[in-house]
């Protein structure tokens, strides 16, 4: 990369950092560098407790993105953050803070902090910047946004928002286009959630505190112990209670290491495993007929063209008019049809008197979904699945049998592993089938989905009402990754967080697109990769910096919690709320905004209508150190306990009519787009590269936290056998490359890594690499069927082949 130009930003920052240091000069600090020969600190000074200086305690919350949602007790001394601990007001069950939380003591003062607003000084992408004042910056932001509006309209501004920053009002304020994390964390949900009617992010149906009630827990492509570190105790409690936990993962992950059993699997073949399991369950009739009849679409009748038979086609009755409880909107619903075993004729599916047949007689002219499933599963024998997954037939059969017959099985699915293959929707769909066959949902110990964040109770806070109804966030006209290759109307991007690196694979293509934009505004706390592409960079501050009595509020981890008055924003940074207000002012919309963060928070809390927050006001919350439990959290949440799903029929709808044209009405096997075994490109690029999530990082954050650098740095890991083949040694500098791009870093030998794979942690910035960026090699292939997938195609980051050589 461009060393000198990178430095210009660094030197601009160093200058103001020094200024800061002077301003915040702290007495009593023991010599920073090697002291003088007879410096008081070393020779004769007795060891004394450090000076009694003014200490203050405040409460805030830590990251949302790791889903830990820890509420923290913080101490400052002489105006500096000196201690971060779990909030002692919490019940022990929830009182926590991990190594990253504590690392903030250094991290918030770290040398990658953006200290002043910056203006690009060279070409976009070069990373050359000059420090400017907030006034200059906001003037330019206002002009650029207004110019874009005038030219292309408000929807032409795309707010690319990471889930971490607290910029909830921004897209609405600007009437901009936005979308939550396009192409990310939705791969499995695309296949699983249509069956349950959930969001598309396949949230786990039970809370993790319920894990202990399971008899059998299968965790697949999910490094739970790391990515759900604050809930790891729930899994450990379950293991301690004797629950059998099997982890299916290509690598011997941390979670695999603590599980009862680890089943290694060929990367990209997870869907094949589930298809094999389904066949075994079908062949051995391990399914739960009662459940299928009562709660799934298995008995629905399918017509010859693959579409589902509707009741009006049989009865001539008009479709039902159904009013949505919340929105009061009326929707038409033409009910599904089942074959009544008693009367031997088609009946409406929800007629209580009917005994739905799982198989329709040939004479009926229809097949049930279940019939179709048996047909489509014929190809997926255990031997077939074993060949693809590398899992023995015995192990596959065992998994199927245990999952189907344990009495209470939980299936945990992650977002950092198999979710990032091009066939993740097939995987998710197969899981939906497995759940519907066995009824492992809606009861204690019966759950499915991603376990991130513990999946506890939630409560909605009141949302801010803009005075103008036109002020609302607009859904993107297309998935953001398509901006790079298709005609579109987006001409300005406001990126909050490191989204330009993190949301897109094949970074060189992203860079090409960014160069065509009129304006890029980057808002972040740290000088992340995305800042490199921006015209203006605005420095935000951490949740430890809050100049108001209260700065923010959220409901998470079964609690409502706030950010209390902490440090003043460091350097020249501003809080997320202040920056939103600055932008509002710059475009003349500040009247539409709450004028203080406290006003916004008070509105959200005091006007809420959530049952779980009954009686909670901001004043009460503040009396309670900014933290209160939600009502009714005593017992772990069990989702769908009433077996009512948010689908069209209210049941587990596992037959996807919409996908008939893609031959995915029922899951059919599809190889990954790139890492499949017979890919001819493998001769050139023999290794799958996977970006795992680390307990020491949160996506691309904390690489620059010195206390975390003790445990993690940007490198790739390989199996020693592969390294021997490539003639590389432990800690050699290597280059990973393919025809999309390349990056250079150290390689570490690790037996826990599957031969044939290169493993690295997610999101390293270019500065953490010896050269290049991991995201330049990643695969951005999309299936054509993405247009009909619930959340569009998933970016198949882990479906990437590379070659590796000594650099």
């Amino acid at each position, binding site marked *: 990369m461009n060393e000198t130009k990178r430095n210009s930003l660094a030197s601009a920052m160093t200058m103001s950092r020094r200024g800061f240091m002077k301003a915040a000069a702290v007495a*009593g*600090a*023991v*010599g*920073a*560098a*090697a*002291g003088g020969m007879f*410096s008081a*600190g*070393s020779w004769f000074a*007795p*060891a*004394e*407790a*450090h*000076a*009694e200086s003014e*200490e203050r305690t405040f409460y805030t919350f830590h990251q949302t993105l790791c889903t830990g949602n820890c509420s923290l007790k913080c101490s400052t*001394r*002489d105006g*500096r*953050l000196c*201690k971060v*601990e*779990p909030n002692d007001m919490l019940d022990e069950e929830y009182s*926590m*803070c*991990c*190594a990253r939380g*504590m690392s903030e*003591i*250094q991290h918030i003062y770290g040398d990658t902090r953006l200290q002043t607003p910056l203006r690009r000084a060279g070409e976009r992408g070069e990373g050359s910047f000059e420090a400017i004042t907030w006034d200059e910056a906001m003037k330019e932001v206002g002009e650029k946004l207004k110019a874009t509006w005038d030219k292309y309209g408000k929807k032409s501004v795309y707010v690319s928002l990471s889930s971490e920053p607290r910029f909830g009002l921004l897209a609405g304020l600007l009437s901009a286009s936005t979308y939550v994390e396009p192409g990310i964390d939705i791969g499995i949900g695309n296949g699983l959630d249509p069956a349950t009617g959930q969001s598309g992010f396949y949230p786990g149906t039970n809370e993790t505190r319920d894990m202990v009630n399971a008899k059998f827990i299968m965790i697949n492509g999910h490094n739970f*112990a*790391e990515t759900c*570190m604050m809930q*790891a*105790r729930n899994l*450990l409690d379950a293991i*301690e209670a004797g629950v059998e936990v099997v982890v299916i993962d290509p690598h*011997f992950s*941390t979670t695999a*290491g*603590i599980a009862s059993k*680890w089943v*290694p699997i060929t990367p990209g073949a997870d869907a094949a495993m589930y298809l094999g399991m389904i066949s075994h369950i079908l062949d051995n009739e391990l399914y739960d007929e009662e459940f299928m009849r009562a709660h799934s679409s298995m008995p629905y009748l399918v017509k010859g063209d693959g579409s589902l038979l509707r009741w009006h086609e049989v009865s001539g009755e008009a479709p039902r008019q159904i009013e949505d409880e919340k929105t009061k909107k009326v929707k038409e619903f033409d009910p599904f049809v089942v074959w009544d075993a008693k009367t031997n004729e088609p009946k409406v599916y929800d007629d209580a008197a009917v005994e739905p047949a799982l198989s329709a007689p040939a004479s009926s002219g229809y097949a049930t979904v279940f019939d179709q499933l048996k047909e489509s599963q014929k190809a997926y024998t255990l031997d077939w699945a074993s060949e693809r997954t590398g899992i023995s037939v015995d192990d596959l059969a065992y998994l199927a049998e245990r999952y189907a017959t344990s009495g209470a099985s939980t299936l945990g699915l992650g977002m950092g592993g198999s979710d990032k293959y091009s066939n993740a929707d097939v995987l998710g769909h197969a899981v939906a089938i497995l759940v519907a066959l066995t009824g492992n949902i809606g009861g204690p110990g019966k759950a499915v989905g991603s376990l991130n964040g513990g999946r506890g109770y939630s409560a909605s806070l009141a949302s801010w009402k803009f005075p103008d109804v036109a002020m609302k966030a607009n859904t993107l006209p297309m998935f953001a990754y398509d901006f790079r290759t298709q005609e579109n109307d987006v001409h300005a991007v406001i990126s909050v967080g490191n989204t330009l690196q993190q949301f897109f694979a094949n970074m060189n293509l992203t860079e090409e697109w960014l160069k065509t934009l009129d304006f890029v505004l980057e808002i972040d706390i740290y000088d992340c990769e995305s800042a490199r592409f921006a015209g203006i960079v605005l420095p935000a501050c951490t949740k430890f910096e809050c100049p108001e009595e209260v700065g923010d509020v959220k409901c998470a981890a079964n609690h409502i919690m706030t950010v209390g008055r902490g440090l003043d924003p460091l350097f020249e940074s501003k809080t997320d709320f202040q920056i939103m207000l600055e932008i509002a002012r710059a475009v003349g919309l500040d009247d539409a905004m709450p004028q203080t963060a406290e006003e916004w928070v008070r509105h959200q809390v005091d006007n809420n209508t959530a049952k779980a927050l009954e009686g909670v006001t901001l004043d009460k919350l503040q009396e309670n150190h900014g933290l209160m439990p939600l009502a009714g959290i005593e017992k772990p949440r069990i989702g769908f306990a009433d077996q009512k799903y948010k689908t069209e029929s209210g049941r587990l709808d596992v037959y996807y009519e919409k996908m008939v044209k893609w031959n995915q009405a029922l899951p059919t096997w599809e190889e990954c787009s790139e890492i499949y075994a017979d890919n001819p490109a493998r001769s050139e690029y023999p290794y799958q590269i996977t970006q795992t999530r680390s*307990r020491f990082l949160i996506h691309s954050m904390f690489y620059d936290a*010195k*206390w975390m650098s*003790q*445990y*993690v740095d940007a490198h790739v890991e390989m*199996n020693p*056998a592969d390294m021997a083949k490539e003639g590389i040694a*432990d800690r050699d500098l290597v280059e990973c490359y393919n025809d999309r791009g390349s990056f250079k870093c150290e390689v570490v*030998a*690790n*037996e*826990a890594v*599957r031969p044939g794979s290169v493993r690295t942690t997610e999101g390293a910035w270019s500065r953490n690499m010896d050269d290049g960026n991991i995201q330049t090699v990643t695969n951005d292939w999309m299936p054509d069927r993405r247009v009909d997938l619930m959340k569009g195609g998933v970016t198949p980051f882990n479906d990437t082949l590379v070659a590796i050589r000594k650099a």
Partner: protein
Amino acid sequence: MTKLAIAINTARCIDCMTCSNACKMQNNVPSGMLWNRVITEGADSVNGAVGSYPNLTRTFLPLACQHCENPACEKVCPTGATYKDDKGRVEIDYDKCIGCRMCMAACPYNARVFNWAEPVRDPDFNYGDPRVPVRPRGVMEKCTLCKERTDDGDVPMCVACCPTKARVFGDLDDPGSEVSRLRREKSVRILLEDKGTRPQVFYVS
């Protein structure tokens, strides 16, 4: 008498290093060293494993001063800077330490860390508990069992912060304490038991 101790359930350890950072923070531990670290036993790296793929095992071992009943470090200290206190903790009187590093050679656990240089901190001020003495260059330091906290009846910071509740702190001389119960009832692992140091930190799984 009091014999303060920690039981660590290695089956509950997920190598999150929270205990390491909690200790570093609480005790103002300088850069480049840790009083409390977690190793992956027998493996060559963090995230490593023992064996060869796919026949692998992994044990995380949180490692700090074992507060031995028969501390090798105490005996060899020429000035009595290292001592066993009335609560059964092995402590260091930093004012007495002459930096000879006899104790470091004597400790079988590599639990001690030395201020080879003028201590440097990042951030560059004294963080953590203000009651903790600041150690100068040329002295030895190590886990004090959070002396300042445990004197006040609090549990050590690593115990308070362990996200998986893998650590239990208590008094081995109190037969009713949880640590005593674990020591009696569980299959206990004593690190390097053959060395006869009789650690008060012990491991269960």
